């Protein structure tokens, strides 16, 4: 008989609103405390100290509008956050400061999280849904200069972009963008040419989340359906369906592959976190703790594999922290 699934290692309470996004920062060089950033529906970003399990800092920069994306830029002292106030803010948190240093007005009213990619030392690309309904805009940070605007062909009818993933094969190579659209298709964009390289209809419903493993050239996407779709990218830059996996309940809000590419976690509308082996998509665990939709899952970037954590934020205002499959 298989072991019963583990309980959360601990639970963070006190956001007093639904948690929409999580981001770990535990692997820095400096001897700091492991930190978890969470963005919640009431517009606050909480900085959690994972040693004390308390909120260190509370950031209020989105006019009490829901924060749905938080990322660190380089170190844990520089933060990027995206909110429903249609702004992307850049924070300076060094030495206890809590100030917004810069911001981008996206003019986009959707829920599409932006995607950040380090292309060179001190140079970042950020992809985000643009003002026009079907467009994606890519900016360079910190200069905020526009790199390109990705417009589907007229009559493509992809709908709004729902989720984005910027990636590059290795340092210095051409960055590419994977975008999941409202009509259920996943599109691979070439940024320099602004052209569609490949398009694959993975779902019947909007793509809610996707993640991509550039080493194996394989990605996974989830939608509001009961199906996870795994697809691969061949050498001709064509997307192909690799396999699908049927779920017990419909609706996937977020998918994250662990940085070591061993396992992946999904955040389900059915309140459950599911863990799969990434190689064969072998179901490994169903973590049933939350009492409402799970909005986001995130793996920590601990240097030591045995310390690695999984965090999940839910509509029930809680963030659950799990330690699972740390020995492999």
């Amino acid at each position: 008989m298989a072991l019963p699934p583990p309980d959360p290692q601990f639970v963070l309470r006190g956001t007093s609103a639904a948690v929409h996004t999580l981001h770990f920062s535990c692997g820095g060089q400096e001897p700091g405390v492991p930190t978890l950033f969470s963005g919640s529906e009431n517009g606050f970003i909480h900085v959690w100290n994972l040693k004390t399990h308390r909120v260190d800092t509370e950031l209020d920069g989105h006019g009490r509008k829901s924060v749905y994306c938080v990322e660190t830029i380089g170190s844990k002292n520089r933060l990027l956050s995206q909110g429903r106030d249609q702004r992307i803010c850049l924070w300076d948190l060094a030495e206890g400061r809590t100030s917004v240093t810069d911001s981008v007005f996206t003019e986009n009213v959707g829920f599409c999280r932006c995607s950040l990619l380090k292309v060179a030392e001190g140079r970042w690309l950020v992809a985000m849904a643009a003002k026009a309904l079907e467009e994606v805009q890519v900016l360079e940070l910190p200069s905020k200069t526009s790199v390109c605007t990705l417009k589907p062909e007229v009559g493509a009818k992809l709908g709004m972009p729902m989720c984005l993933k910027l990636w590059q094969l290795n340092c210095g190579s051409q960055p590419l963008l994977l975008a999941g659209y409202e009509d259920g298709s996943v599109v691979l964009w070439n940024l320099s040419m602004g052209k569609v390289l490949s398009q694959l209809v993975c779902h019947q419903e909007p793509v809610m989340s996707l993640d991509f493993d550039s080493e194996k050239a394989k990605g996974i996407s989830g939608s509001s359906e009961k199906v996870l779709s795994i697809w691969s990218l061949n050498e001709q830059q064509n997307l192909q369906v690799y396999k699908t996996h049927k779920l017990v309940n419909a609706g996937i809000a977020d998918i994250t592959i662990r940085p070591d590419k061993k396992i992946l976690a999904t955040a389900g509308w059915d309140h459950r976190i599911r863990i799969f082996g990434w190689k064969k998509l072998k179901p490994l665990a169903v973590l049933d703790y939350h009492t409402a939709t799970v909005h986001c899952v995130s793996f920590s970037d601990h240097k030591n594999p045995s310390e690695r954590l999984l965090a999940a934020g839910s509509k029930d205002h809680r963030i659950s922290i799990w330690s699972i499959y740390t020995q492999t």
Partner: protein
Amino acid sequence: LGAMAAALERALREAAAALERGGDGAAAALGAVRAALAAAGGPAAFGERERALFGAFLRSLARAPRAARPEGVWQGCFLEGPPGLALCVLLEALASPGSVRLGEVIEVLEQFLQEGRISALMWEVCQQQAQAGSPELQEALLNKIVCLPDHVSNKLQGKNPAVFFPQNYFPLLGGAVIQVLQKISDSLRGKIAGGLCYRDGSSSEVSVHLVCLPIFSSTSEEILSVLVPRLTDLTKSDCIWQRICWRLVECVPDRWMEAVVLGFVQRAPGADVLSRLLGNLVVKNKKAQFVVTQKVLLLQYCHTTAVLQNLLGYLSLDSLRRALLIKVLQELLETWGSSSAVKHSPPEQQQYISKAILICLSHLKEPEIESCRQELLTSMMEGVKCHLDSNLPQIRRLGMIVAESISSKINTDGPVLKFQVKVIMKFVWCAGLRGNKSFKSDDPGHYSNDDDLIPYDMSEDKELKIKAPVYIRDCIEVLTGSEDVDKWEATVKTLESLVRKNPAATREVSVELAKILLHLEEKTCIEGFVELRQRAQVAVLSTDPIPVAKYLTSQFYSLNYSLRQRMDILDVLVLAAQELSYPKSHRKTKHSGAQNPCIQLLPGSDSSKDWRRIVDERIKSKTRRFATGQSQAELASGPNEFNSVVGHFFFPLIQHFDRPLTTFDLLGEDHFVLGRLVHTLAILMYLAVNTVAVTAMGKALLEFVWALRFHTDSYVRQGLLSCISSMLLSVPTERLLQDMTEELLETQSWLGGKMWWWCMPVFFLLVMQFLCSISLIVIVAVMS
């Protein structure tokens, strides 16, 4: 040999003379007789002459004075002499004891029994019969053996020794019979061994006839309980014993045949044993055939299933008897399918017959079924019809079960009759299987050896429960149009509580909701669907009684409803009436009403409560209580909600019962619904106690009862009686006397005059009670 006989004769004469004389010579003479007897080779060698002499000797011995009978010697004469003669003389002595005391005779008799002289006697009788002795005499002798315990106990007036108790005596007798049969079998075996033809055993077979007499003429219980197990053992592998046993039962006279056959059937451990013991008795003997094929199966129903299995198995074990088996099945089916039998015979008997049919069916083979398929089909159809017509649920179920079995037996290739009872069970079973399978595909073991990650237990990963709607209008939408089965299920489960929580919202759509619920059918297999729907219906009706009751009562008499739906309507009306008239539920609804904001806005309600409280406290403080017991809890009081609406429940139901529709004929075929209607009216009448309309209702109800008083269905008549009883309970006496005297007297005369009509004791009691209460009421009226 002649010399021996002469010596014996001489000894007997001398002994007789010595006994006449008396004195010391008697002892020597008796000793001489015994010696001569032994020398002659025992009583078996006796001729007619010796028997007569010995008889005279024994009689004189019995008359001889005490002194002439030396202790131990005279008893020996009785025990060693010819057993038949000895017994006769002893019985004579018992009847009129002369010089021999009663106690002595009993003692000798006891010894006689214990030394196995009975079997010697029977063997002697058999031998004499073989030599053509007088059969009457022998029969009389055997009868005496059988009646021995009675004789003794009559004589001793209850102080008889234990060996003469029937429970001891008859097993002894049974043992003796077995011994004799053993001897017969040995002699037969000897003859066969000696080269004689087997069939030439006629003399022995005749003797079997006589042996069997005592077995069966008496209380056969005890003897059979010894005999059947022994015979079962002995016939196991011995054809001679089998033959003897067959002969034994064939020789049983007709008047004892039933007891014997039944005894064998009840005691045989299995059909094969029974077949070994009885042989083809049922084919040869008319009486046995009647008992087996008619009496046990059709006229009695007290036997256990094991007996039925024995009996029908016995019939099926021989080709000659199989014809009887088919005949039996046809007769059973005829009874099973007869509407009169279904109506008038007790349910236990019908169950018994159904069992017999099922056992018969299991014994039938394909070609036999082929030969009577058409008849089976016809009787099955008739039987199903009259069983399903029955008012008793167990009879209906019985009908369905038997019909399904017959159908599956006769239609091996075609479609088979299936009733829903089982279909649902099978569905559940299938559903369970399917669930298991899907679980398997989720089983992580399926992927094992692909990865080194060990999965956790994921069996709890089930589908999330669908959220039920929160508004009543949403419920209507889901119930009428939704294709989402899960949502539909959740709605059905939650509807009642929603209706209870939101009375105002329910009132807006009450009739529509009632209509939907009335037509709601089970889309998926929900546990307790019928109850859930009914509770929702009751909730709707009690929330908004008048319009919903109007709707439901009008639908009861309209076209195109199934009987089930019409009965649902009745049930819902009764349950809602009960809820409305019950004070506790009133408080509950008031409580839920208090959550309604508009009531809280009323300024008066709170202050009036305070006022009441203050007054109560003042009274309490100034009152001294002398009672020591607990103060009685005050019952919650409130207006009877049923009062204002009772008419809407009652009168529309009573109006149209005599107008048949094309699909619904209360006074004709649909008497079951009529029965339910009558019972419903009775309950409504009972619940209407203390309401204003009760007198008018009582009047209408009596009219209704009058119109139906000669209905043929007992369920309906029972309902009429409960109508009367609840009318007597609910309507106040003075109203009864003033407004309903005529009707009451009419009813009284009907109940009193038609007493014979009520065949069941329950009815009789009820009727008697009513007569008493009506008479009382009338007497009160006359007095006042």
